[in-house]
């Protein structure tokens, strides 16, 4: 996705830009071809017009000749009309056409020559007409019969034919150019249209893809927001739980430490009282000592004083034990966890081996399911957790039957769930939360213990990103369900303490 997006964002706009440049080039080319077409058509038209005017010039000369001949033959003045008109027009015509002819590529020499020829012809015609007017008909005919007029006329015709050929050629060439330019114009317009479609398509595609990316990003953001809320909720729960535990912990510590302290103070007073009785007895002279004071003193020395000392000693030991246990728990809570891949079957086999002596003594057995999942967790913590649970299962076995402890497990959603199921004496419903509290124990207090093991187990399991729960039927057995993060590092990321 990331690679696709970067390639996409890099190449598609580049392609679109290249397309736009190409389109601009095509538009420019089209303009160029259109200009060429226009220019060519102008030139072709000019050539045709030039040809036309050259022909008009020829026609005027011919008209003049026809008019001259008519006059020579008939001698009637009315035949001279076209000659006079032609003579006037030819000069004008020539003036306007000669520049265009040179522009069309007809040489200066040819134009000059044509001009001289036309002048010669007009001169010849004027001469003959003049002779005729003077009545010298034979001389006029003789001039015509010299054929000089005919030769001039033939040469004019020849030049006109050449001009016709030249202008025709120019027209042909320009038409050719025009057709070519029109063809290229068509091609460039078609190419432009195709490119335009591609560009618009590309732009739409880009917009659609971009919109889709935005939608995906928006969704991802929404999901993250949701996840954040869930995580905040989780963290709040963790904090609330930690707070509750801290309250119950301080209550327990307060109560359990105060109890032996009261004993110490109480029996210190008792000690003082007994000491006072004995001191009073000792102060008396032997003859004033009666039976009652003697008995009281003996009671103080033999009973009260050793009893008080005993209680003081045991209370101090109890306080010492409690403080040590609290410190041990605190140390366990702050110990650096060491995440390593662990095979639970191997780990539990070691734990069972360390209990083997007690298992043999009581005839108990532990069955490890081969399907125990692999985890990445702290070895020592797991050994302490399962060591405590298995030890409890053996300790609180039902004396009427052999203890059989099944350990099985599954893995799901990143959590390993391990069941430690025994067929022991069970736990009454009201005790199922209390047993996890510090210094609390369930059922008849007929087995040694301080009520610390399960508090320790719970603290450890929670540090490993999970929790421990208990299911039990009184008199039938108990199952402790230990839920652990399959990878303790992920639990740390989630913000477990």
């Amino acid at each position: 996705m990331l690679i696709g997006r970067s390639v996409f964002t890099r190449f598609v706009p580049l392609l679109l830009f290249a397309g736009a440049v190409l389109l601009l080039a095509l538009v420019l080319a089209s303009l160029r071809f259109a200009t060429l077409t226009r220019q060519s058509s102008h030139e072709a038209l000019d050539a045709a017009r030039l040809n036309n005017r050259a022909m008009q010039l020829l026609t005027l000369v011919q008209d003049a000749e026809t008019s001259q001949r008519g006059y020579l033959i008939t001698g009637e003045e009315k035949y001279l009309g076209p000659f006079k008109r032609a003579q006037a027009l030819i000069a004008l015509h020539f003036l306007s056409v000669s520049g265009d002819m040179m522009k069309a590529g007809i040489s200066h020499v040819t134009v000059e020559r044509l001009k001289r020829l036309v002048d010669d012809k007009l001169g010849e015609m004027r001469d003959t007409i003049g002779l005729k007017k003077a009545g010298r008909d034979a001389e006029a005919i003789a001039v015509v019969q010299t054929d000089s007029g005919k030769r001039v006329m033939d040469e004019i015709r020849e030049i006109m034919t050449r001009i016709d050929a030249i202008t025709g050629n120019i027209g042909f060439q320009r038409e050719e150019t025009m057709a070519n330019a029109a063809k290229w114009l068509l091609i460039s317009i078609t190419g432009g249209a195709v490119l335009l479609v591609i560009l618009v398509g590309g732009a739409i595609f880009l917009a659609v893809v971009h919109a889709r990316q935005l939608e995906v990003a928006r969704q991802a953001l929404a999901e993250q927001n949701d996840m954040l809320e869930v995580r905040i909720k989780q963290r709040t729960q963790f904090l609330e739980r930690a707070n509750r535990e801290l309250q119950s912990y301080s209550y327990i510590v307060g109560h359990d430490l105060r109890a032996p302290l009261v004993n110490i103070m109480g029996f210190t007073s008792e000690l003082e009282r007994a000491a006072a009785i004995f001191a009073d007895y000792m102060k008396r002279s032997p003859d004033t000592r009666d039976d009652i004071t003697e008995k009281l003193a003996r009671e103080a020395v033999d009973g009260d004083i050793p009893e008080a000392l005993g209680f003081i000693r045991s209370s101090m030991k109890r306080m010492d034990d409690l403080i040590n246990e609290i410190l041990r728990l605190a140390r366990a809570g702050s110990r650096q966890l060491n995440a390593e891949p662990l095979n639970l079957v191997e780990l539990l086999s070691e734990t069972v081996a360390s209990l083997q002596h007690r298992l043999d003594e009581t005839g108990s057995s532990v069955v490890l399911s081969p399907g125990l999942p692999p985890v990445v967790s702290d070895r020592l913590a797991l050994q302490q957790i399962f060591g405590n649970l298995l030890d409890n299962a053996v300790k609180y076995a039902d004396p009427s039957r052999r203890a059989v402890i099944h350990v099985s497990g599954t893995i799901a959603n990143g959590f390993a769930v391990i069941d430690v199921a025994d067929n022991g004496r069970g736990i009454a419903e009201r005790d199922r939360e209390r047993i996890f509290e510090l210094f609390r124990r369930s059922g008849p207090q007929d087995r040694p213990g301080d009520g610390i093991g399960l508090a320790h187990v719970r603290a450890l399991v929670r540090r490993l990103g999970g929790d421990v729960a208990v299911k039990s039927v009184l008199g039938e057995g108990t199952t402790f369900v230990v839920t652990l993060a399959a990878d303790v590092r992920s639990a740390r990321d989630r913000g477990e303490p």
Partner: protein
Amino acid sequence: MNQGLHPVVIIMIEDDQGHARLIEKNIRRAGVTNDIVPFETGLAALSYLLGPDGSGKVHEGKPLLILLDLNLPDMTGMDILARVRESTHLHHIMVIVLTTTDDPVEVHRCYDLGANVYVAKPMEYEKFVNAIQQLGLFLLVVTVPEVS
């Protein structure tokens, strides 16, 4: 405090032996001479109180008084209180809660469950002695119902 043929028996449920001994000594100093039956665990006390049939019929006709600590290793004093109040024969015997806790919530719950008196054990020994002796004086004058 003697009532007819059956003097009141004080059932003391207290897991701390030192406390039990100090309470007994100070009650005696107040002049109480009644039998005191001590129990260290809730289960032992309940099996004695409720008897084999679980109804408390064993103690029928005897005046009983319970001195109850709330923090026991195997169950809470409130569990015992609730069981006593639920039983057929013991439901109106006198129960005095004597414990180190003075948390108002706990005090409330105990009275809700039917405790007759709630005494917080003071932490200073002088006050502790004083409280126990006052309790002893109270026991001397109070009239206790018999187990019905």
